[in-house]
Structures are given as structure tokens and as C-alpha cells.
């Protein structure tokens, strides 16, 4: 199964011109690794609801997570090149890509808002993959409405005691470092909690519709004592940091969705060229050709939107709205395309996880990392001001 296509090369040429050759070489090499060592196992990860640790390790070793960062072993590559790498990873196996993307969101948070010490130690560990991170914000009663969280962090001398429950946490149970949002007197704040902290426990894996390869579980913090050096940035500013971290993260999720959609689309194309009915090939029928044109336009435009948002990020421009637009468009596009591909395969799509898995994987991403509804509120607020 091929992963690196001429369209990736063209995207690089359009956005990066003279550097396209170099970036192409990098991504082609990464694609080669993904094709041989990750993609062939994707169906198994889904069937067994797990097993991505080895694939994740390989991508850490390749340096995937180092790509967008500038210090402590970062590769200083443009965010768009990282996005295309994540698109390829998403095409190979979406749960693995998502697991790494979330890990990298925490890495970005520490890099931008953490102390010198945290940058020197934890950040390096995350980039190399020596430690896996988990982003713990969502609670049983607060997803989109993060501000209403119940997890607390009470100051006691030179420690904080954290109490609460987080749910739907990716990488739970596998991570060594949890980026936990907990409410202090000043408001929601960000803490780094080691997995070995007494009082931290992880629940059973929560069975999911898709993205089954990645671990998702409840994380309980029962009187977890963490040194005050675990606070990331300023007390009470946790959600400001999260808002900022999620911008980049949202574009990455969008790119992962482009990868999922492309993989699904390629399978659909191959099938349409082969399948015969009413004395014709499926691909010769007008109704199919219209679907192909729509899917093709959908995928290309989503990729371009993500790369556009990434260029704004690299330029240091305000990009929260564009990031939100990229995510809304790409994630909704992915379920649309993958749904269409299942339709193309007909009964063979509905009964074959190699086809329906892509729709199931994509289906999460209009919910997680900023539900589409919340993102639309954000986009509209930018246009119209806050609603009355």
C-alpha cells in the first residue's frame, strides 16, 4: 500500500517551493517506513483494540515528534511538513497518529509555557519518546465546557494535592507523564503528573467505535501529591494555555483526517475500477464519477486548508479561527468521504473492517479536540463578536 503520492509532492512545491525536494525526500522516507512497519498492522490494531506501542516507538525513533520544534533536539521543520507527516501517519494507522499527535500537544504546551527546568527535562524526554504524554482535560461532566471542571489542586506547603476524575483520556495507562488540568484557588491550572504518583489510577480501556488501537480510559487522581515544580506556567492560566495548545493540535487532527480520507478514497477508487455491474465498470458510471469528483475536491481542499493554517502559525500570525476552520472542514470531510466509500463498496464495505474502519476512526474527530459545535462558536465569535 503506497502512502506518498504526487499530490503530496505538489503540495510541498506549492507551499515550500525550493525546499520541496528536501521535504519530499524526508516524507518519502517516512512513508516507506509507515508502509512497511505500520500500515500492514492497522487492521490488527483495530481488531485487537491495541498493540500500537511498537509502531509508535518506531515513529519516535524516526523523529516524527521532533519535526515542528526548534530546540532540545527538534528538527525545526515547518509546521506544514509536520502536518504532511501526520497525514501520512494517519493514512497508515489513525490511532497511532492520534496517539502521537496528542502526545505532541503536551510537548508543545511544555515548550511554550513550561519552566526552563521542565523544558530541559520533560520536553526532551517527550521529543525522544523516552516518555509518553497524555493530555488530561475532559471529565465525566465537562467536555466542551472545560471551565466547569471539578478536579481540584489544593496547595499544601510545597506540594499540590490533586483530586478528581478525568475521562476519555488517550494514552491513559501507557503514558509516563499526564498533563492534568486542575482547579486551584486561581482557577484551572496545568500540572505535570508522573504516572508513578501514588493515588493516580487508570481505569479499564473504554471500548470505542473507532480509533480502537489507541488506549482510552478514565484517570483517577486520589489525593495525588505533586511538587509545586509540577505546575506548568502560571497558576490559574491553564485554560489559556490549553486554548493555545489546541490550535496547532486541531490542525494536526485535520491532517490526520485528510490521511484517513485519502486511504479510504484510494481503496474506493481501486474497487470502482474493478467492480463490474450492468455490463460496465463501476468507475464508468456517471453517478460514481460524480462521487469521485466530490471526494477528490474534498480531500484536496481540506489538505490545503490545513497547510494554510499551518503557514499562518509559522508566520506567527493569529490563527485560532483558521485552525478551527481547518479542523471543522477536514474532520467533517473525512466522515463524509469514508461514508461514501463504504457506499461504493456496498455490502463488501459494510462487512469488511478494512473499509469501514476508516469511517469509524474518522468519526471520533468531529467530537474530540474541540467538538465541531464549539469550533463553530469560536469561528462565529471572531466574525460577529461574542453572542449576547
Amino acid at each position, binding site marked *: 500500500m503506497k502512502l506518498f503520492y504526487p499530490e503530496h509532492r505538489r503540495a510541498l512545491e506549492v507551499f515550500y517551493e525550493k525546499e520541496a525536494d528536501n521535504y519530499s525526500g524526508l516524507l518519502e522516507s517516512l512513508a516507506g517506513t509507515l508502509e512497511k512497519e505500520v500500515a500492514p498492522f492497522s487492521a490488527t490494531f483495530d481488531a485487537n483494540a491495541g498493540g500500537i506501542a511498537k509502531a509508535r516507538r518506531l515513529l519516535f525513533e524516526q523523529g516524527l515528534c521532533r519535526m515542528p520544534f526548534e530546540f532540545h533536539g527538534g528538527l525545526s521543520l515547518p509546521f506544514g511538513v509536520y502536518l504532511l507527516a501526520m497525514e501520512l501517519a494517519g493514512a497508515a494507522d489513525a490511532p497511532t497518529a492520534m496517539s502521537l499527535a496528542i502526545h505532541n500537544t503536551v510537548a508543545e504546551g511544555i515548550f511554550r509555557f513550561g519552566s526552563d527546568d521542565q523544558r530541559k527535562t520533560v520536553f526532551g524526554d517527550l521529543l525522544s519518546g523516552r516518555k509518553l504524554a497524555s493530555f488530561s482535560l475532559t471529565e465525566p461532566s465537562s467536555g466542551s465546557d472545560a471551565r466547569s471542571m471539578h478536579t481540584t489542586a489544593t496547595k499544601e506547603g510545597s506540594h499540590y494535592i490533586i483530586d478528581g476524575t478525568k475521562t476519555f483520556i488517550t494514552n491513559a495507562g501507557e503514558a509516563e507523564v499526564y498533563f492534568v488540568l486542575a482547579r486551584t484557588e486561581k482557577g484551572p491550572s496545568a500540572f505535570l503528573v508522573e504516572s508513578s504518583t501514588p493515588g493516580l489510577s487508570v481505569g479499564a480501556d473504554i471500548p470505542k467505535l473507532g480509533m480502537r488501537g489507541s488506549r482510552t480510559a478514565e484517570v483517577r487522581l486520589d489525593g495525588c501529591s505533586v511538587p509545586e515544580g509540577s505546575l506548568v506556567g502560571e497558576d490559574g492560566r491553564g485554560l489559556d494555555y490549553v486554548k493555545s495548545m489546541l490550535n496547532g493540535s486541531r490542525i494536526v487532527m485535520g491532517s490526520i483526517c485528510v490521511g484517513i480520507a485519502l486511504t479510504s478514497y484510494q*481503496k474506493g477508487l481501486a474497487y470502482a475500477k474493478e467492480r463490474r455491474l450492468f455490463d460496465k465498470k463501476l468507475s464508468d458510471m456517471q453517478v460514481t464519477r460524480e462521487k469521485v469528483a466530490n471526494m477528490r475536491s474534498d480531500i484536496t481542499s481540506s489538505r490545503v486548508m490545513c497547510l494554510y493554517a499551518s503557514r499562518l502559525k509559522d508566520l506567527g500570525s493569529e490563527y485560532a479561527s483558521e485552525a478551527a476552520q481547518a479542523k471543522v472542514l477536514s474532520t467533517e470531510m473525512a466522515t463524509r468521504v469514508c461514508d461514501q466509500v463504504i457506499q461504493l463498496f456496498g455490502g*463488501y464495505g459494510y462487512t469488511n473492517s*478494512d473499509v469501514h474502519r476508516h469511517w469509524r476512526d474518522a468519526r471520533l474527530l468531529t467530537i474530540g479536540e474541540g467538538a465541531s459545535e464549539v469550533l463553530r462558536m469560536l469561528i462565529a465569535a471572531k466574525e460577529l463578536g461574542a453572542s449576547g
Partner: protein
Amino acid sequence: MTDVLTFSDSPQLAGELTSAAASIAAGAGGTVLSVELDNVREGVPRGPVLLLKSANPITGDDLRIASAVSEASKRMSSPIILIGSTKLGRMVAGRLAVAGRMCALADVRDLKLDSGMLTGVRDVYAGKFNAKVGSPLPCVALVPQGAYPSPGGSAATVEELVVPAVSSGVRRVQTKPSQTSALDLRSAKVIVAAGRGFKTKEDLALVEKLARALGGAMGASRPLSSDLGWLGEEYHIGLTGVYVRPNLYLAIGISGQLQHVAGIKDSKVIAAINKDRQAPIFQVADYGVVGDLYQVVPALLKILGAG
């Protein structure tokens, strides 16, 4: 008038090469000679034999063989030298080509003489395409097993020739015959082959059973001998493994990558069992069963009365 010299380290191929030589030399007159080393091998039907002898045994060493064959070819004018395409054969052909500054055609069949040029057909691009290639004479051609029939008859005349002893510099410290011979696979009429679809090495017993029940040999795709190490390389069928053309090739749990298909595409009938409907093997099979091999194979064994 075209002279043809033939040699193979494989007795089966050595016989087939004389058919090949006969088919080329037929219209063109000339001498056909097959070369044997050290002693005349039993049971290999062929025509006139040139037995090469030397102070040290020639067999098994690429340079020694090549230099001996080269000596033999000196008595012919611009000959065609047919070498049986085995691993050793390739090494010998390479040496011969350099020594004689000759072209070497690899893995060619349908050999013809055309206006002083030897032409043949070979697979290229892992068997996706056929190439018709040609070379002026003298030249070397590697001929694969099964491209020509085994001739009838036996050794006609045997002439001896003493050739100078030559050292290749490679010392053989130890030799161990393989469990199954690649040559056995090449001559098998039925082959049952296993791929990555099998979960454990022990499960391969199913394949052994089925092969036995069908009176055939067992083979495998590359992962089983290289990545997994469940079987020796001599079982590996494919572009860099054994090339087979049985009457029936039954691929079980094999996805059907190009490299594997390159080794089986000339089989008379190809059948496959795989649980993945999209597996490429179904594009090259006459009969395909989409299903779990762990259920289909036992069912098949039961029908054969071997369950």
C-alpha cells in the same frame, strides 16, 4: 554453423540444456557438447559429453568451473554457452562473460538463432513484463529449469579434456545439504505453500499434511524463511527464491506480492486461500477461496480423506 556448449551443476538442468542446445543448433549445424566436471554423472540423459578433468576437483567453485568451461569453449568458434540457471550457475556465467568479454543473457527461454544473434525471452520487473533480448555470438545464456524438456537417450560419446587447475580463493570449510532441495520444488507437480496468514510455526503442519495428501511438495513465501525464520531458505518461492511451474500451486495465507508471484506465475493452475478479499493473490489465481485457512484447510483435508 553454430556450436553450443552446455553446463549445469544440476543434473536435471544439464539434461534440459541439451534439449535447448538441440533446438538452437537444429537449423544451424554445428557441434553440441555438454560439459561434465571431474566425472560423468549417472542418470542424466544427454548427447556427446566433454569430461573436464584437472589436478584438483573442479566442481563447486565458480572460478574453477568457469575457467574449465572457458577452456572447453576454445575448441569451438564463437559458441553459445548455455549455463543452467542455479545460484552457482549465475556465478559461473558472470565469470565466463568477463573472461570472454561476452554478453550474458539471464533466465532466458524460447531461445532462437536469428541472423547471427541469439535471442531469448526473460521476465523483467518482477515478472510484470517480458523482454525479448538478444546478443551477438559468442555469448552466455542462463537457462532456467523447466524451460526445456528433459531429452531422452543417454550419454553418447565421452571425451576427456585435462584443464589447468585454477584457484578461486574461496575455501569451503563445511557443506550441509538442505532439508528439502530447491531442485525438488522445481520438479514438483503439486506445491502447497504457506504465507504470513499462519499464526505459528506449529500450524505449518497443516500445510505439510495437505501437501502429502495431494502428493506434492511444501513451499513458502519469503517472510516465513526470512523475517520469521520458521523454514529454511530452500522453501522460499519467489523472485529471489525458487522459481516453480507445477501443475497446481496452492497458496495458503499468502497475500500475493509481486515478488512472490514472479516465482509462480507460470504454474498451470494457481489456487489460493486467504481471508482478505482484497489480497493481490486473487488477481493471479484461477480459483480463490475467501475464508479462514484454519477452517478451509481442515475441510479440504477431510474431503481428501486425510483429515
